């Protein structure tokens, strides 16, 4: 690429950015609200979304199967020590698992679903170590002395021990590795720097090969040069599939259902129903107080000063709902954690509690939990 070209590209980029900024500020911003749309109930939305008829099904299938011709090259790159990084629009989950099932039969494969919220990488490493151990045993009929020594179960070992085991340079069989398939290595559960450092260390082990996928356009920002060049050693594969991200978006909130009052009442009632009757009654006391003090518009608002905690305590004590301040506090913490209530300070400096719902929604909620 020429210098001029690069300059032009950079210029184009900044020009686009400022144009977009300008467009945003100069044109009168549309002030339409989401609530103006007649929103469908979330449950129905999820149901319909699950059954959306995919477009271009035939072409997508054909596209995905066309990548099969690259499998041998990918395998070769893996065996030469690179890690594969799949990117491009569309879910690559099926493609990667198909590749693993068809081409990586000689190696054990662990799949990590990075799109999920929490992933315990230590458990993954333990599994990798166990699989490698099995594979080594399979590779030779009589395990040599050095291998027999580490009979201690892997799950009691430290992370550094496990990584050293996976990285052992002195194992006799060289082309012996286990594969780790990471869907969405840029996913929410793996996005933090500790997880990425850990994954990089796993990928750099001589007996581990990694196949990973990214979907976020800025995913490479997760890695520094040391990780990219010496640990992950990525071999980039551009494989757009246009397959729907069905599994990956399973836990994403629906943008059109978000914030709707129906939604809030529903979640709130689910939370409340899981609590003890006493806790429910404490909430009801607060709700009744709030309904008895509507503001001008009939909505809860920050004008509503809320119910001072002391008042709530005394009312609850009178009704034998709580025996001490400690019990009340534990209920309140539970409410706060689920965003059922908010605290603020009134003009007298007292802590006041209120429920962030409209009066209408609140009435509905009270009716539901009775």
């Amino acid at each position, binding site marked *: 690429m020429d210098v001029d070209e*690069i300059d032009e590209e950079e210029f184009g*980029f900044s020009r*686009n950015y400022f144009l*977009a900024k300008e467009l*945003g500020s100069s*044109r009168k911003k*549309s002030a*339409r609200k*989401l609530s*103006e*749309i*007649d929103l469908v109930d979330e449950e*129905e*939305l999820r149901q*319909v*979304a699950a059954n*959306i008829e995919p477009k*271009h099904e035939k072409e997508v299938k054909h596209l995905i199967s066309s990548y099969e011709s690259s499998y*041998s090259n990918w395998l*070769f*790159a893996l065996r030469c020590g*690179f890690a594969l990084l799949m990117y*491009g*629009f569309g879910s690559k989950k099926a493609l990667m698992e198909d590749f693993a*099932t*068809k081409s990586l*039969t*000689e190696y*054990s*494969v*662990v*799949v*990590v*679903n990075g799109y999920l919220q929490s992933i315990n990488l230590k*458990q993954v490493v333990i*599994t990798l170590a166990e*699989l490698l151990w*099995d594979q080594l045993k*399979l590779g030779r009929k009589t395990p040599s002395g050095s291998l027999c020594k580490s009979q201690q179960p892997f799950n009691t070992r*430290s992370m*550094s021990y496990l990584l050293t085991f996976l990285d052992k340079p002195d194992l006799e069989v060289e*082309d*012996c590795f286990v594969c780790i398939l990471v869907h969405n290595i840029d996913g929410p*559960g793996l996005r933090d720097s500790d997880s990425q450092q850990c994954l990089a260390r796993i990928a750099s082990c001589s007996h581990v090969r990694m196949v990973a996928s990214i*979907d*976020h*356009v800025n995913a*490479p920002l997760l890695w520094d*040069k*040391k990780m990219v*060049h010496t640990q992950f050693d990525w071999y980039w594969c*551009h494989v*757009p599939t*246009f397959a729907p*991200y069905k599994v990956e*978006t399973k836990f*994403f909130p*629906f943008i*059109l*259902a978000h914030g709707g009052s129906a939604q809030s009442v529903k979640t709130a009632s689910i939370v409340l129903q899981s609590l003890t009757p006493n806790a429910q009654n404490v909430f009801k006391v607060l709700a009744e107080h709030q309904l008895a003090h509507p503001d001008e518009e009939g909505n809860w608002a920050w004008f509503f000063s809320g119910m001072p905690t002391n008042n709530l305590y005394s009312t609850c004590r009178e009704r034998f709902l709580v025996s001490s301040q400690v019990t009340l506090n534990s209920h309140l913490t539970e409410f706060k954690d689920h965003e059922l209530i908010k605290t603020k300070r009134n003009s007298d400096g007292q802590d006041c509690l209120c429920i962030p719902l409209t009066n209408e929604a609140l009435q509905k909620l009270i009716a539901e939990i009775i």
Partner: protein
Amino acid sequence: MYSPNEHPPTDQLAENNLQPFFVLHKASKSSESSAVMSPGKPRKRRLDSSPKVSLNSESMKENLKMEVFPYVWSKIESNIKDVLRSINADVFDEIGRWVCESFNEICSCRGPVDPSKSTLPYPFVQNGGLVKKLFTALVFTKNIETVDDILTFSELGLNLKSRGCYVVNISSLDFSTKNGIGGCLRAFLRQLLMVDIEAADVSLLASWYSDHGKYEKPVVVIIEDMERCSGALLSDFIKMLSEWSVKIPIILIAGVATSTDAPANVLTSRALQYLSTSMFFLKSPAERMDAIIEAVLVKNCAGFSVGHKVATFLRNYFLRQDGTVTSFVRALKMALVQQLSTEPLSFVLKILVDEGDNKRSWYEDLANLPEEVINHAFELPSYRTYSVNRNNHAELNAMSLDQGLSELQRLQELWRSRLMCLHEAGRYHKVALLDLYLEALDPELYNSRLSNHGCDNAKDKSLLSDSDKLFRLQKAEVTNQVIRKIRDLPAAKLSQLLKSWEGLTRGTVEVHEKIMELQSQMVSGDVKSHKAELTDKSNNLQCYNLCNRRHINRHRLNMEKDACTSNDKAMTLAGQTIRDTMQPIECMPFHELICFKDVDNLQSALVGDPRRRIQIDLLNFYKILKCGCCSNSGGTLSPSMHDTSIMYTLAQEHGDLINLHDLFQSFKASISSSEKKGLKKLASPKKRKDNTHSQNNSDACFQARFCSAVMELQITGLLRMPSKRRPDYVQRVAFGV
């Protein structure tokens, strides 16, 4: 567990999708080829020892590739390591000496050792007062990319270990504020004591040292990248070490990327006081790069080479984008992998490596190959052009392939020696080998040189001098510059240059003779001038008349002229030999077998550009999916397009903030434009009830499709979700592809 050939039951699949991780399958059998991959110890096994192996079977091809790769790559890799080691050897020696001196100095101020007090800080000092100086070497890497220096510092560690020091390598990751001082101390103890201790303490180190060290060896702590460490933590660490610096003779070596004031920027002034610093300088990345190019690509240690475009890409990637030698080495490895995967015959590389070790004919290996493979070689474009140009009708068999390959080797050898000659000449003006290498690889330049030469021959020769011809080839700037500057070389340097050329051109008789001739001319010129000087002196003594003075001046002029002519001759010789014999590899027949040229493939595997590519995927999806329905739309939105593509195209029309309501309405309009037409036809009074039902249904459908499309854009990071402050707006992230 299910066998890979049958599909897993869907329930299990769905369950697996919600597991954080699961085992897809276990290794089915021990890989047969496992014995093949042993990069450390290449075996001297003949290729294709079984007669008439068929290259058609895929597994055979795979195995061949797998056999060749470790063989060739281990050769290249070890070469690179050697080069880097030798480039650092001088500095390492210097550092080693300095460590010894520092240790002696610490020992000299230490009093008699009392083992019972060895685990307390502050030492037994002989000459009174506390010695808290910490001997520190600042190693300037001249390189902001620490990734290149990881190897350097681990080599330095090994070097110092071999000199009998205890060495600890600590990286900036250990100096993170999250782990605190305990983190780096733990890393410290882990490496020296080989134990993982939760409650790390220096006194443990002190007792270990008094047990093991017997006060005979220093402890060297190497911190690879000082500037990336947390300053406060590093200052504390230094303070702590200095308290123990005599009990445990600790010597610090810190890598510094920027300038001499880096320690002052990172450390507190208090910690700075404890340091007694010395400075050492490593070679710059450009110098290392030149050394690697020379060892691997020019001297061609493993027979593998790259084409002009690939080399240009690698150079630009190094100079403008990445700047690390590590990534260059990685790119080279990738090129080798791709060469082996795309060119079935490239396993001849293995023979080339073998040949370097023990010379033998390739014929035996080639004769074992099936006929179709041999034929494949003769169908390569390079051979076709060659045979058309030469009107060559050689028999297409293993023998002629063998000859072709030997010829390729010979030409490569010539090219190499000419390039090295140029490099020698360029050294006097600090011309980078990389630039010369690129020009030497350029097939266009070579061809234009040849055609120019042809034209000139046809014309009247007297009109153009040789040097003019060189000037005409403006494209070969660096090469021409080097050649031109030979003219300005002083005699001593010229004779030095000729001497090095003599060594480099030993293989080609003709050029070698010319150089020898030039050298002898220069020597005789020297003798003459020496004599002339003597006569000048005697003349000076004898007579002082004007006539004689003129005579002296003429003598001097003649001498200068002689020198000029030998410089000119050297220049002409260089120009001529380059034109005649420096044939780039891409102009040689059969070069496809050992030369990697597919720059696009390499680039896409080396530098994925998700930001750009994912956007292009969305905007030009019909080019990838190759569907008939959308490619005709000519840029306008059609309902048949992929939902997310429609959404992203719509988002392009907005500023940085997109009103969700508007977006939904325009999305709905785009996907329903054709459906509306259909609905109109259906609308009859009887079906009104059904219609409202389907209307509701389609509302839900629009909303669901809208939500999915937004979610997909959210996954790709091209849309940011509404914030609490602006609940009705999503934010655009990327501007322009």
